C-alpha cells in the first residue's frame, strides 16, 4: 500500500481511532453513575431510557392524563425515595439474556415432557397423584397467571426504567410458568385416560383449599400501587404460597408417586423466583435505607407485610389438606410450612423488617 492510498483511506474512514479530535475517545455513556466501577452492559441499555424531569427531561412530560397525572408519576406508589435512580436489577436482565434464559427453560421443559412421555412415564404415575396434578397443580397455575398479570400492569407504573424492566421480566417469567404448567398438564393428559384439563380451574374457583390463595392474589390485583404489588408477590405470596406448593409439596412428594416429570417442570419456577426475589430485596433494601424517607418506607412495608403476609399465611394454612392426599406421604405440611416461614423471615430480615407475626 503506498502512502497516498493510506492517507486517502484515512480521510474517508469512519472507523474508531482514525483521527484524534475533541471527544474522539469518549466511548462510554457518560450521563449516569454506574453502580460499580464500570457500567455493566445491562446499565448501558437500561438506565435513563425512561426519562425524568429531575434529570434530563427539560420540557417535563408533555402529555398528561385527564386528572393531571403526568406520563409517569412518583405518586403512583406510597413509597418515597430521595433517588429513584439508585436501583439496579441484580439479575441484570436486558433483552438478550432474558431470551437466552427463557429459551433455555422452555427447551428444558419440553425435553422433560417429550422424553418422559416417550418412556410412558405419565401412565405410571400413581393414580391418586394424577388426580392431584389434574385438580391442584391445575388450580395452582392460575395463581402463577395472576401474579404475571398483576406484574404486567405494574410495569407501566414504576418511576424508572430499572424498576419497570425488573417488573416486566418478572411478569414474563410468571406468565411463562403459568403456560408451562398448562401445556404440561394438557400433554400428559393425552397419555392418561380420563384426565380432565379443565378441572384445575374449577378447583381454583370453587375448592375451599384454594380460596384463600385466590383471595390473596386478587387482593394484589386489586391495588394500583406497583410497589405494593411487587412486595406482596415476592416477599409474601411467593415464599408462603408459591414456593410452599412448588417446593414443599410438588418437589418433595412427586418422586414417591412415581412422578419424575412434574418436579422438573416446576423447578424452573424456583430458579425464576430466586432471581426475582433478589431484585425485589435489592429494591426494598434501597428504599428502607433511603436517607430521607427510609423510616417512613419501612413503616409502610411493615404494614404491607402484615396485610399480605397475613393473607399469604392464611392461604398457606388452607393448603394443608393437600399433604394428606397423596398415596405415599413422605412429607408433612408442618415441616414444609416451617421451611417457608424461615424463608420469609430471612427475606424480611434482609430488608430490615420485623418478622411476620405467626397468627
Amino acid at each position, binding site marked *: 500500500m503506498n502512502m497516498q492510498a493510506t492517507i486517502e*483511506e484515512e480521510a474517508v*474512514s*469512519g472507523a474508531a481511532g482514525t483521527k484524534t*479530535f*475533541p*471527544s*474522539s475517545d*469518549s*466511548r462510554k*455513556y457518560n*450521563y449516569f453513575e454506574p453502580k460499580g466501577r464500570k457500567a455493566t*452492559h445491562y446499565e*448501558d*441499555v437500561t438506565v*435513563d431510557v425512561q*426519562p425524568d424531569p429531575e*434529570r*434530563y427531561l427539560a*420540557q*417535563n*412530560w*408533555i*402529555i398528561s392524563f*385527564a386528572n*393531571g397525572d*403526568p*406520563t409517569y408519576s412518583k405518586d403512583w406508589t406510597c413509597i418515597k425515595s430521595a433517588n429513584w435512580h439508585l436501583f439496579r436489577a441484580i439479575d441484570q436482565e436486558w433483552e*438478550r439474556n432474558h*431470551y*437466552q434464559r*427463557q*429459551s433455555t427453560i*422452555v427447551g428444558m421443559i*419440553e425435553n422433560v415432557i417429550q422424553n418422559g412421555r416417550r418412556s410412558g412415564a405419565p401412565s405410571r404415575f400413581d393414580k391418586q397423584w394424577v388426580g392431584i396434578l389434574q385438580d391442584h397443580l391445575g388450580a395452582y397455575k*392460575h395463581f402463577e*397467571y395472576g401474579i*404475571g*398479570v398483576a406484574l*404486567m*400492569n405494574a*410495569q*407501566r*407504573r414504576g418511576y424508572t426504567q430499572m424498576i*419497570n*424492566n425488573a417488573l*416486566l421480566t418478572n*411478569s*414474563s417469567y410468571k406468565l*411463562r410458568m403459568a*403456560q408451562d404448567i*398448562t*401445556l404440561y398438564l394438557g*400433554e400428559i393428559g*393425552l397419555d392418561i385416560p380420563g384426565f380432565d384439563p379443565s378441572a384445575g*380451574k374449577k378447583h381454583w374457583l370453587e375448592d375451599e383449599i384454594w380460596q384463600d390463595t*385466590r383471595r390473596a392474589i*386478587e387482593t394484589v*390485583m*386489586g*391495588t394500583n400501587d406497583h410497589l405494593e404489588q411487587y412486595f406482596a408477590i415476592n416477599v409474601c405470596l411467593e415464599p408462603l404460597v408459591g414456593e410452599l406448593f412448588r417446593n414443599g409439596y410438588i418437589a418433595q412428594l412427586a418422586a414417591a408417586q412415581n412422578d419424575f416429570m412434574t418436579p422438573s417442570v416446576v423447578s424452573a419456577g424456583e430458579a425464576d423466583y430466586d432471581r426475582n426475589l433478589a431484585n425485589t430485596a435489592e429494591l426494598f433494601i434501597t428504599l428502607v435505607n433511603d436517607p430521607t424517607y427510609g423510616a417512613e418506607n419501612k413503616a409502610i412495608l411493615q404494614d404491607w407485610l402484615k396485610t399480605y403476609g397475613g393473607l399469604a399465611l392464611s392461604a398457606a394454612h388452607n393448603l394443608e389438606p393437600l399433604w394428606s392426599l397423596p398415596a405415599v406421604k413422605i412429607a408433612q405440611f408442618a415441616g414444609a410450612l416451617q421451611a417457608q416461614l424461615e424463608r420469609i423471615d430471612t427475606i424480611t430480615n434482609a430488608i430490615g423488617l420485623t418478622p411476620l407475626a405467626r397468627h
Partner: protein
Amino acid sequence: MSLSLTSITQQKGMPIAEATRRIADLGWTPSYVKEAMAFPTDYKISRQPKDPMKQVLRSYFPMQEEKDNRVYGALDAALRGDMFRNVDQRWVEWMKLFLAIIPFPEISAARSMAMLGRLAPGDDLRTGFTMQMVDEFRHSTIQMNLKKWYMENYIDPAGFDITEAAFGKCYATTIGRQFGEAFITGDAITSANIYLQVVAETAFTNTLFVAMPSEAARNGDYALPTVFLSVQSDESRHIGNGHSLLMSILNNPDNHLLLERDIRYAFWQNHAIVDAAIGTIIEYGTRNRDKKKESYAELWHRWIYEDYYRTYMLPLEKYGIKIHHDDVHQAWEDITKNGYVHKVAQFFSAGWWANFWRIDPLDERDFDWFEYKYPGWYNEYGAWWENYRKLSKPGSVPITFADTGYVYPHRCWSNLVPCVIRDQLKVDEVDGQLYTYGSEVDRWTHKEAFSGEYKGRATPAMGRFSGRRQWEELYDGWDVADAIKDMGFVRADGKTLIAQPHLSLEEKDMWTLDHVRGNTIKAPITTLRSLSPEDREKHIAEYRKGSAIRLV
C-alpha cells in the same frame, strides 16, 4: 426406504388451537376483590378480542433467541468486515438523532400493554399482549445496544455518548417524546391501541423499520438493517393485536365517534412526526444518489397510501367509521408538492448548533438528485443549501442568524414539529391562551380532540397537552453558547461543539462556543403572544406568505 428422524421421534401433541384455548382459560373474573382499573378509557369494549397469532410462549422464546443470535452474529461480522471503514459519516451522524429517540417509544409500547391488558375482556389476547410487551423490551434494549456499538466503533462518538441526556433536552427529539408519550398517556385505547398499534405500528413502522434500513445499507451501514429488520419482524404480531382489539371496539356503534376522532388525530400526528424525522434522515442523511431508487415520497405512496390507506383504513368505512380522506390526501400533497420533508430538513440545518450530531452541506450530486426526484427543488431550496455550505466554516455567522431571509418557524403546539408549511399556519386560543399549529388538523387536535368533551359527548379519559411543550421557550432570550452549554452539547475539551455544520474533524474546522456566542435565541410564540392584536394579524399574514431565501 430410509427412516427420517421425525418418524422415530414423533409424538402425539396438543393441537395449537387447543393449546391457545387452554392458555386463554388461565384468566378468571375476580370475585373477592375487583381488579383495579388503572388507566381509563371512554370506549366500551363488550366483545372479547381473539388472538390472531395463536402462539404460545414456549415457541416464542426460542424463536426470539434465534433472531437475536442472527443479529448479534451479524454485528460481530460487520466489525470483522471493517464496516466502519466504509460507512458514510453523513449517515451515521443522523443515527445519533434517530437512536436517541427510538428506544423511548419502544419501551413506552411495552408499558402500554399494561393498559390494554386490563381493558380487553377475556384473556385470549393477553398472550398476544404479553409477547408484545416482551418484544418492545427487546426493541428498546437491542436499540440501546446498537447505539453503544456505534459509539464504540464509529469515528466520532460524541453525541452517542450523551444519548439519553440529549434525548431529554434537544429541540429535535422533542417530537420523539411527543410520539412516545402519546402511546402511554391519556385514554388507554386512544393511545395504546389506535395511536400505537393501529396507526404507528401498522402504517409507519414500514417507513421507520423497512425503508430506513434500506437506506442505511446504501451508505455502508449493515448494522442498522440487521437490527431493525429483526425488530420489524415482530411488528406483524403487534399489528395483529391492534387489529383484533380494533375489531372488538368497532363492534359497538357507541365507539364510532371516538374512533373517527382518534384515527384522524393519530394518522395526522404520525404523519407529521414520522415523516419529519424519517423523511429527513432518508432523503438528507444519505450519500447515495441512485436515481433508480425510490424517493421518500415514492416510499410513502407505497407503504402509507397503497398499503395502509387503501387496504387498512378504507375498509373500516364498511363498519361505519368515517375516514378523513382529505387528511390523507393533504399529507400526500404536503410531501410531494408542499415540500414538507425538505422544509423540515431545512429547519434541522437552520438550528444545526442546537443538535448533538453533525450535518454536512449538500453538494452538486445531492442537488442533482433532489431536482430529479422533486422538480423545482433547487429553485426553492438551492440557495439555502448554498448558504449552508458557505457558512459552515467557523467564524461565519451561524446560518440561523445570517441575513438569508429565513424566518425561524413557529412550532406546532400539537405535534411539536415546526410549522414549516407556512401558509397552513393556524393560530387559535384555548382556555384564553394563544397557540400556533402546523395545520387545521393540529388545531383541531388541541382544541377539540384533547378535551373533556367531544362533539357533545363527555370524554373524561382523554389526555391533555402539558409541560413546557415548546423547546424555544426554555431558552428564550438566552445566548446560543449558554444554551448549548446548558444542554451539555459540548465536547470533552469544554469548548468544541458536538454539532458541526460539516463533517471535518480537523480542529481548525470545528466550531466552538466562542464561534456562536453573541447570538440570542427567541421563542416565536413568546413574541407572537406579546404583539398587539393588529400586529399579530400582520405577523401571521406575513408568516403565511413565506419568504424567499437569498444568497449571502
